[in-house]
């Protein structure tokens, strides 16, 4: 009953004209920013921060939050249409979304991304409203040992991500981990593999690598095959989902939403993992595994749902504990500070209209996004019929602007170009970039949490087994490994018997 009262209070705040207008501006700007590759919500929010000084705090935060989840929506559009992950979370969407577009199914891919995001956003908003405080406690129980085991589980499942050779996938993961280790070592403060370049002391940005190996590589590949691009705009059949597509996507959306909502709560990089995790899960349990990587609709629906749910629930540690789970959330804290609000456990008590108003506006914002994005699908698809000789320079230009906006450093653009070339070589060698990306994210975290856990246990490795959460995840990883290896073993034995 209290929940209904709170939601009512929130809707009362969110439905005022001013807040509706700013919520709309937020999601609109967010969508645009998300569509433009690389130009992320962080740079945009930082630029718009001064504009919010004259607004009331709740209106300012509603707008800033709108930019954040609007960008999550927009990011999938370029991922599907031109294989460019506009946002780090839409890297996974590239895998099957772009393949769908190549088959003339860009419409259904965009539609399922929008619908999955909306469903996930609605569900996650309800989760925040109902369970935010107890869920924050769960997040706190995740110590360094538990995080380490979570990363192990993630890496083990990375092997599952690969479509082709297991050995190649393994090599790509290792390469990703090595690339991830560039930068300052947390434990000693030593700079590793930086060659005295100060731009490398913070490591290479995830978005930069992703733009290189996905976007730039795709441009090179397309220029290699003349005239190929024009074909797939003509093949566009329908803009909407067929019944069978809907049936295949619905359960995937449900699973993606649940997974994303859970992982989003963890401040140590959970939200970023969610889309990878959801994709892996779908691929494991799906009946048409062979379709994955070749345009499976579940491969778009599940990660899209997961990343949107994760983006939403990552507000839980911010609103309940004052802990930012990613740089965007840190900026939200900055915005609160400028408006003289102390983010943290006191917000719900001292500023109920702010807390519940923001939550209600998130749902309204998600609704706006779906209403506003569905009619746009036709327009986006038509964009594909733009001749490629015009499209690719603009893609590269926007990529350049986007990458530059990350930290105002031209060095980053050079790095992305380098990764574009590297990505081209990978394609020629038939090595997939997805395991590389996962290794890149997980590797450094794996090391960080391993060493921190061992530092805290004074070097005793048993800490990973005495912690119940950690032990549970290590057991799950072991089971998963056995499942991956078993079919191969069985096959070999059958081969032996056949002779």
């Amino acid at each position, binding site marked *: 009953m209290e929940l209904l009262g709170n939601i009512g209070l929130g809707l009362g705040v969110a439905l005022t004209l001013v807040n509706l207008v700013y919520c709309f501006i937020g999601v609109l700007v967010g969508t645009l920013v998300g569509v433009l590759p690389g130009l992320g919500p*962080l740079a945009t*929010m*930082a630029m718009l*921060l*001064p504009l919010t*000084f004259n607004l009331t705090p709740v209106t300012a935060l509603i707008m800033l939050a709108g930019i954040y989840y609007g960008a999550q929506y927009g990011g999938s559009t370029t991922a599907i249409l031109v294989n460019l992950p506009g946002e780090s979370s839409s890297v996974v969407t590239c895998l099957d979304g772009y393949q769908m577009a190549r088959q003339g199914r860009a419409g259904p891919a965009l539609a399922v991304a929008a619908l999955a995001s909306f469903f996930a956003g609605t569900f996650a908003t309800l989760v925040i409203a109902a369970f935010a405080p107890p869920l924050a406690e769960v*997040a*706190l*129980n*995740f*110590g*360094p040992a538990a995080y380490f085991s979570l990363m192990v589980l993630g890496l083990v499942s990375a092997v599952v991500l690969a479509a082709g050779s297991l050995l190649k996938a393994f090599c790509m993961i290792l390469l990703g981990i090595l690339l991830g280790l560039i930068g*300052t070592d*947390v*434990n*000693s*403060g*030593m*700079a590793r593999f930086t060659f*005295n370049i*100060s*731009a490398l*002391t*913070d490591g290479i940005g995830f978005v930069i690598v992703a733009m290189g190996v996905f976007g730039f590589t795709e441009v090179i590949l397309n220029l290699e095959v003349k005239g190929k691009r024009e074909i797939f705009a003509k093949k566009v059949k329908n803009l909407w989902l067929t019944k069978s597509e809907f049936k295949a996507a619905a359960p995937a959306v449900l699973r993606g939403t649940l997974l994303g909502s859970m992982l989003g709560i963890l*401040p*140590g990089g959970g939200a970023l993992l969610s889309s990878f995790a959801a994709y892996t899960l779908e691929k494991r349990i799906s009946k048409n595994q062979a379709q994955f990587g070749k345009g499976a609709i579940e491969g778009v629906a599940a990660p899209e749902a997961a990343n949107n749910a994760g983006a939403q629930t990552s507000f839980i*540690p911010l609103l309940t*504990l*004052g*802990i*930012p789970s990613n*740089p965007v959330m*840190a*900026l*939200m*804290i*900055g*915005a609160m*500070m*400028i408006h*003289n609000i*102390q*983010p*943290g*456990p*006191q*917000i719900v008590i001292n500023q109920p209209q702010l807390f519940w108003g923001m939550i209600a506006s998130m749902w309204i914002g998600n609704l706006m996004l779906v209403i506003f994005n569905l009619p746009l699908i036709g327009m986006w698809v038509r964009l594909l019929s733009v001749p490629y000789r015009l499209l690719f320079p603009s893609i590269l230009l926007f990529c350049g602007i986007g990458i530059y906006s990350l*930290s*105002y*450093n031209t060095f980053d653009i050079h790095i992305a170009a380098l990764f574009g070339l590297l990505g081209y070589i990978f394609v020629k060698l038939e090595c997939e970039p997805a395991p590389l990306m996962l290794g890149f994210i997980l590797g450094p975290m794996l090391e*960080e949490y391993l060493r*921190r856990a061992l*530092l*805290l246990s*004074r070097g005793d490795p048993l800490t990973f087994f005495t912690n119940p959460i950690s032990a549970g995840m290590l057991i799950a990883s072991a089971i998963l490994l056995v499942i991956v290896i078993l079919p191969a073993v069985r096959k070999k034995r059958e081969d032996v018997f056949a002779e």
Partner: protein
Amino acid sequence: MVKILCRSLLLLAIVVFTVTGAFGQDYPTQPIRIIVPYTAGGSSDYVGRTVGAKLQENLGRPVVVENRPGGNAVIGTELVAKARPDGYTLLVAGFSVLAANMAMYKNLPYDTLRDFAPITNVQDSQIVVAVNPKVPVNSIKELIAYAKANPGKLNYGSAGVGNTLHLAGEMFCLTTGVILTHVPYKGASQALTDLLGGSIQLMFDLPQTPLSNIQAGRLKALAVTGEKRLDVLPDVPTMAQAGVPEYNFATWTGLVAPANTPPAIVDRLFKEITKALNQPAVRDSFAKQAMVVKPNESPEAFRQFIKNEIDRIRKVVQAADIKPEG
């Protein structure tokens, strides 16, 4: 219409500029950039934006805050060190960039005293000792006794090797003679998560980060450094009141310009900034973020202050053997 207005304004500006010359009295004639070498949202960003808004109001020129993070704040700092010394590029920097880095790193691409013209300090932040409530201590004295009775049991978190919070912790160990294990994190909020969860037992933190969790009773604040209690934590004693007056540690943030900026411009900025900082409303808004407004008497006083800080930190770094570069 607008175009004509713009043109005539531009013409006017050129005329005024050429007639009076660039000797400070007509400064500023163009927008001023304030570089913050961290991502938006931290306390340096807060200083930059608050001071920037006031300067814009009083100087009648746009003041733009630019975040140039990366490389442990070295990238943004280097940018200003090499910028044209005309008063149109300023840097928000303090304890760690201007003093601690100088004491710790050999290969810094800048030298604080050679490359910058200090304008004024803006704020001081005290350090609060925050402990997880499960640790059975209720005062600093009890903490020291507990640490001595249970060697190797207490871990303190910091935002990274050589970071302010690390130095604050090492300084505490040096002055009180206890041994605590340092656990570095990627940023203070990550450490705060583990402090709340109990993986680590205490932090020597800037008050802004743990403040709301202290007020909510999720963390125990044992004492704050500095001469006075914090307005936002009136029940928490100072180190002197808690019986450990020998431990003193504060961080500060100020504004600097590139070296060789005309003294007239530095003086003008000094006057404008200190005037703004002395307004009660500005003081209050800083106080709410647990920062104490503390401008210097003159730009020269700020330079002397920075010099003393570098020497002081060098001693801590040597005594605690902190070598971030290995």
